[in-house]
């Protein structure tokens, strides 16, 4: 058989494979440009959605004809198909306005990653041994179905649990319905840098259980408490776009940006004024500033509104937070507190942000509420240049979803035996890697009798699975997304597959639907859609009746247009802020508690979301590994940031291996002398230190999460990941610190003389 024929055959095979994976032929016309329409060397652009982080930016995928080695029906063939070549932002998308961050750019290497799981796997060796054997999808689906109960056994709790990353789309709806049908508890959502505290605070202050949208483009003064809003926090691209306008986009007007933090972040590095405050005292500082504003009658207390009401002594002018007192606790001098207060008041619209380490403290919620109150006081809530809450699109299914338990609780239940789990389904969450040792997640999962994973990669968690049903990459499957923040419009993004699946994988939602069909009973009844695509079509169809970006005569036209545009966005922008559900107790800002005695463990330990790897999920992308971190310029490394003076005192040299020990564990990483970090603080990026995450990430660097205390935020129970104290000792050998940049001063000699 000559190559041409082989190509033909395998191409046909592939086409059919693509069809039965993705629904009815007639819809292909819109979704795929059929291969015969792809002219070699001529690019086609297709809309998509970036799922590299939660922000939900819109994509334009550059697709060109190419020849790929693909497996179809168990046969390896050279198939001429459309391949994604480049990702750009979708210019029409209200969140990212055609821009895209580094993670988004690197999304291609998720699809083309050599370590992707290419077909369903059944565990053949011992758990975690990583020995798997290939099985057919039919087997896999039958096996999974056989491990799921028809319905909730009367009386005792269900032994099924679903562990997933936080989802804000119809996949979550699908999962929820599925679990409900078989009587299982709602899905357990896990992500290390969780936003529980801020959502809760916004619910209390403004009545929105939601992350804020900051209208940076129109603001004159930004005060950010540790929010890495230009790097990894909330909706970075949207915020960067606004930031650019704030800085130089408005003729004759340039906003000021003040960042308060203990370790200079990539965002803080841009600040016009960088303020060091002791970790966890941000709330105190906020109220100190509020105190000055009230004392000098720059704003009436009333303007604080609900947000203000909740702060103890608000109406009395916050007597406990006089600058002198605050200065002692925060380490910010009185004069500066007063100046900041006056500047804030003098330059409306001014906006306050809080995020990152400020919330990951035992007093995180209080800090957040204090910042919210200050925002209220500055009359910057729901006003141009202030903070907003992105209105949800009118999609009933997505409203009022049930919250699941926390991973900590799940594991505790399993380990105690109080609520054992027989079958655990895992979807792109990696708690084994990203949880403090005290949670004993690995032990817990080892006690679970059957684990099925939908992961595209073998990672620390899915390597414990008995069955792996690999998901498509987000360029190969139907994706939808409802951005929680980053825009003032209601947005429902839709991303049809940009290319045929490269490997013998299937989209998780379609698998769930098939499983449901196999099981029959409630599940089959609850999930009557044939494919996830049908589900989306139905859901998005309901948007047609609402005023928005798309007006179409027929439902089909609407559906195809949504696909072409990459989503639907509602008309106008809502400035509404609901009335808050007042908390009963009056909140007091205070200093946080830290784990570890301040004498023995003399450093505050600040893990932070890595610009390269986020919470570690991008560590398997070579582009991200080799992209120099902006502040440290490090590549392929993990490091401990330490203040140069401190290092000098301790005789620590750049790149020297250090041992960082907390009460809960220790790790080794090379020292990085960072001029922008407080003398009594050491910081470390999260993301490296994977044991088992493909060839690029495995066995590289250290994982700071593994020495964190299980301390939690007092009110919400969220992990207070910034509340650990550590001690530093020199190992006495060089570490592996790979820097792209040399000197840190532009004029080394002048600086030396200084």
């Amino acid at each position, binding site marked *: 058989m000559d190559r041409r024929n082989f190509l033909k055959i395998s191409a046909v095979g592939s086409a059919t494979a693509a069809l039965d994976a993705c629904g009815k032929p007639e819809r292909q016309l819109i979704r795929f440009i059929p291969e015969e329409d792809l002219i070699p060397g001529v690019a086609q652009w297709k809309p998509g959605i970036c799922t590299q982080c939660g922000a939900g930016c819109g994509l334009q995928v550059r697709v060109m004809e190419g020849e790929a*080695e693909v497996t179809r029906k168990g046969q390896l063939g050279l198939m001429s198909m459309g391949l994604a*070549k480049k*990702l*750009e932002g979708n210019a029409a998308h209200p969140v*990212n306005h055609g*821009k*895209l*961050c*580094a993670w988004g*750019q*690197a999304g291609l*290497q998720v699809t*083309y*990653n*050599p370590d992707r799981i290419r077909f369903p796997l059944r565990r053949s060796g011992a758990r975690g041994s990583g020995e798997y054997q290939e099985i057919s999808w039919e087997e896999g689906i039958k096996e999974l179905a056989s491990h799921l109960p028809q319905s909730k056994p009367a009386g005792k709790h269900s032994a099924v649990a679903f562990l997933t990353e936080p989802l804000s789309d119809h996949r979550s709806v699908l999962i929820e319905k599925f679990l409900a049908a078989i009587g299982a508890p709602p899905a357990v959502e896990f992500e290390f840098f969780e936003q529980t505290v801020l959502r809760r605070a916004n619910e209390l202050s403004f009545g929105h259980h939601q992350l804020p949208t900051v209208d940076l483009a129109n603001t004159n003064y930004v005060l950010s408490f540790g929010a890495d809003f*230009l*790097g990894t926090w909330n909706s970075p691209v949207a915020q*960067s*776009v606004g*930031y*650019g*306008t704030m*800085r*130089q*986009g408005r003729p004759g007007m*340039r906003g*000021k940006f003040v960042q308060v933090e203990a370790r*200079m972040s*990539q*965002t803080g*590095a*841009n*600040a*016009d*004024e*960088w303020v060091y405050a002791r970790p966890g005292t941000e709330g105190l500082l906020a109220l100190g500033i509020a105190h000055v504003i009230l004392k000098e009658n720059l704003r009436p207390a009333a303007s604080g509104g609900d947000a203000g009401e909740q702060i103890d002594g608000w109406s009395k002018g916050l007597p406990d937070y006089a600058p002198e007192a605050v200065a002692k606790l925060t380490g910010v001098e009185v004069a500066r507190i007063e100046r900041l207060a006056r500047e804030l008041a003098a*330059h409306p619209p001014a906006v306050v942000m809080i995020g990152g380490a400020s919330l990951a403290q035992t007093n995180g919620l209080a800090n957040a509420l204090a910042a919210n109150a200050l925002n209220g006081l500055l009359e910057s809530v729901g006003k141009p240049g202030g903070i907003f809450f992105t209105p949800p699109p009118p999609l009933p299914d997505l409203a009022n979803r049930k919250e699941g338990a926390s991973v900590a609780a799940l594991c505790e239940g399993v380990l105690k035996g109080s609520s054992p789990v027989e079958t655990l389904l895992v979807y792109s969450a990696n708690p084994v890697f990203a949880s403090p040792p005290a949670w004993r997640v690995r032990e817990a999962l080892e006690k679970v009798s059957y684990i099925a994973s939908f992961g595209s990669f073998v990672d620390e968690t899915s390597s414990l699975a008995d069955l792996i049903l690999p998901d498509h990459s987000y360029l190969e499957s139907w994706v939808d997304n409802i951005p929680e923040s980053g825009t003032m419009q209601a947005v429902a993004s839709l991303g049809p597959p940009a290319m045929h699946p*490269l490997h013998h994988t299937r989209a998780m939602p379609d698998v769930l639907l098939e499983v449901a069909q196999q099981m029959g009973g409630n599940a089959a009844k609850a999930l009557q859609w044939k494919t996830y695509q049908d589900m989306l079509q139905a859901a998005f169809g309901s948007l047609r009746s609402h005023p928005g970006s798309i007006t179409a005569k027929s439902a089909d036209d609407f559906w195809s247009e949504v696909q072409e545009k990459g989503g639907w966005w509602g008309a106008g922008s809502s400035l509404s802020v609901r009335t808050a559900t007042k908390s009963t107790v009056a909140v007091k800002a205070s200093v946080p508690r830290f784990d570890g005695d301040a004498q023995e463990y003399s450093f505050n330990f600040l893990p932070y979301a890595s610009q390269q790897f986020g919470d570690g999920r991008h560590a398997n992308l*070579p*582009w*991200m*590994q*080799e*992209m*120099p971190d*902006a502040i440290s310029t490090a*590549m*392929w*490394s993990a490091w401990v940031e330490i*203040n140069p003076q401190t290092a000098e005192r301790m005789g620590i040299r750049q790149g020297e291996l250090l041992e960082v020990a907390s009460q809960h564990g220790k790790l080794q990483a090379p020292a990085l002398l960072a001029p*922008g970090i*407080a003398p009594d603080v050491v910081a470390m990026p999260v993301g490296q230190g994977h044991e088992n995450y493909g*060839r690029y990430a495995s066995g590289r660097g250290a994982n700071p999460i593994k020495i964190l205390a299980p301390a939690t935020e007092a009110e919400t129970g969220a992990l207070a990941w910034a509340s650990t104290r550590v001690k530093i000792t020199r190992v006495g050998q060089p570490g*592996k610190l*790979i820097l*792209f*940049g040399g000197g*840190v*001063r*532009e004029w080394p000699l002048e600086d030396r003389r200084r």
Partner: protein
Amino acid sequence: MGHRWGMVIDEDRCTGCEACVAACHAENNIATVGDDEASRGRALHWIRVERYYEGDFPDIRVKYRPVLCQQCSDAPCEPVCPTYASYQNDEGLNAQVYNRCIGTRYCANACPYMVRFFNFYNPVWDKPLDLQFNPDVSLRSVGIMEKCTFCIQRIKAAEIKAKAEKRPLKDGEFNPACVQSCPAGALIFGDLNDPDSRVSRLSKSSRGTTFLEELGTHPKVVYLKRDTWHDEQNA
């Protein structure tokens, strides 16, 4: 009048997010060399974000400066090349002809901006990462220099398209990968010969300067100095 492609880089907008770096890798088939090679100082980044500290803790701030080929009009890298691998094309681009290069690395020494990179080994891509290759950009082999091209493949594509449609190129009709991705809009690209283009207007800004001006390389990249906040109230 022909085009003279230039860029304006606003240091006051740049946030150090490195989106440009990743975008450049994706667009130009730039290899990742791996940790060992990177530790030997052989990483390839046609565009980089230089980070310089000013002052000391706690009164410290940072200046980010994205640096890519400055496309000098009087480029020191060009006359030193014995084989014309590096020369000035008719649109003012400082072009590098890969298959003429014999790897003397003289141009890299002559370049004051350190934006030229050498392939010390034959680059490797683990399959199927190679499926991502941009077919418009040639791969580089061992022993030759490579550098930023202002995404010449995009320039040519746009010019051909405009020609086919019998119309002049519109300002901002296309952009190099770094410019297109830059979230804060710190990078602006355009035709310096077109007086109305955004890039030529911005390049006349009072904050405008060129990099290492004293060397007389006459770059086509203009940097807008980082601005400072002045308090209108007290001013």
